[in-house]
């Protein structure tokens, strides 16, 4: 928010009139990531979970709150390299980021196909079914708004709004190798949260497939605080 005010007051230059997200080859991307750039995966969350670049943060550009969510969770510094299905998807995402002044940080993009074809490593983190979460074995983190959590949550779930994770996840009571399940209403916000947790070093994080909506459809019990 401070940066947006600074742009509006003229103290910081806005991005160009025509935002761009030039394509980088996978080798160059790998070098830039090693030098501190941040991979931002803007594909649908199912694609991200099927295969993603290690340590990428993920926010689906098809979400109507895309640029606001990126604003909440993106690290304060570092150029962004978008991971997208196509060049035009990367450009669309960059144009949306311009509404909140984050286009300035986009250095370029790489397509997932180019990364894969170059033989670069990908991680898979398929979601877990609500039934398996009910059976135990994973601690549950609910990342919805506080009033959604209070209205009904998975018994035993901890709560932290995904928007607050970057600043507050130190307070989570989970060990880095503890199996975790992250849940939201439908699966989009929990996918974002999962990427933030993985990037921070949590090694076994999975999304609850279909979120609390799937939990309710399965007739599973909820708790209220």
């Amino acid at each position, binding site marked *: *928010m*401070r940066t*947006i*005010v600074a*742009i*509006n*007051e*003229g*103290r910081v230059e*806005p991005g160009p*009139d025509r935002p761009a997200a030039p394509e980088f080859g996978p080798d160059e991307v790998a070098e830039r990531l090693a030098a501190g750039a941040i991979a931002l995966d803007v594909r649908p969350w199912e694609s991200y979970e099927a295969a993603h670049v290690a340590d990428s943060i993920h926010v689906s550009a098809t979400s*109507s*709150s*895309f*640029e*606001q*969510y990126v604003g*909440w969770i993106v690290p304060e510094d570092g150029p962004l390299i978008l991971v997208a299905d196509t060049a035009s998807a990367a450009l669309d995402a960059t*144009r*949306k980021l*311009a*509404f*909140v*002044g984050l286009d300035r940080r986009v250095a370029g993009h790489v397509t997932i196909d180019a990364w894969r074809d170059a033989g670069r490593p990908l991680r898979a983190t398929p979601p877990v079914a609500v039934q398996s979460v009910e059976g135990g074995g994973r601690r549950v983190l609910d990342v919805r708004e506080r009033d959604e959590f209070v209205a009904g949550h998975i018994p035993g779930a901890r709560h932290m709004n995904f*928007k607050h994770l970057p600043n507050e996840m130190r307070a989570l009571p989970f060990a880095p190798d503890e199996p975790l399940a992250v849940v939201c209403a439908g699966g989009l916000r929990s996918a974002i949260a999962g990427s933030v947790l993985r990037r921070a070093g949590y090694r076994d994080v999975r999304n609850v497939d279909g979120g609390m909506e799937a939990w309710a459809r399965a007739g599973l019990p909820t708790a209220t605080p």
Partner: protein
Amino acid sequence: MWFHQEIREETGCATYLVGSTASGECAVFDPLWEIEPYVRRAGSKGLRITHVIDSHAHADHVSGARRLAAATGAELYLPEHMEATYPAKRLADGDRLRLGEVDLEVVHVPGHRPEQINVVVRDLDRGDEPWCILTADFLMVGDMARPDLAQPGEDGARTLYEVSIPRLLALPDFVEAYPGHVAGST
């Protein structure tokens, strides 16, 4: 007078065009970064964008005011108390802009931000009474905007209550209020 509310659902932003059918001039209030929709709308009505107004230094989105003024040759207007490094005409409490039959009256409404202004719109072809007020981030649907972002919350709230709300209440009851945000802002 021509009046149009432009809503961008992704961020819940509501912005406004007010134009004069008599003079062909058009004012844009709080335009977003993507300026093409305003140029298209005004153009589709045969109006020229001549006045671009920013109500305050927005914290949630990048303003398109400078870009829109540069692209159209319009005059750029900022609140008197807004900090800005770039040139603009300044609007103080009580200032009035005239576009043909359209009269825009500036009301200073500090509290959300110290510099915030609203605009009271009159269509002088209809009469002297105000028709609507563009409330930006001062008054939303069923709520007022946060007083704690640009100053201590208690100070902002006191200013809202003692200074700004009375200015709003001084308007006739029939005046319509058009806010800067609808559902969608996180």
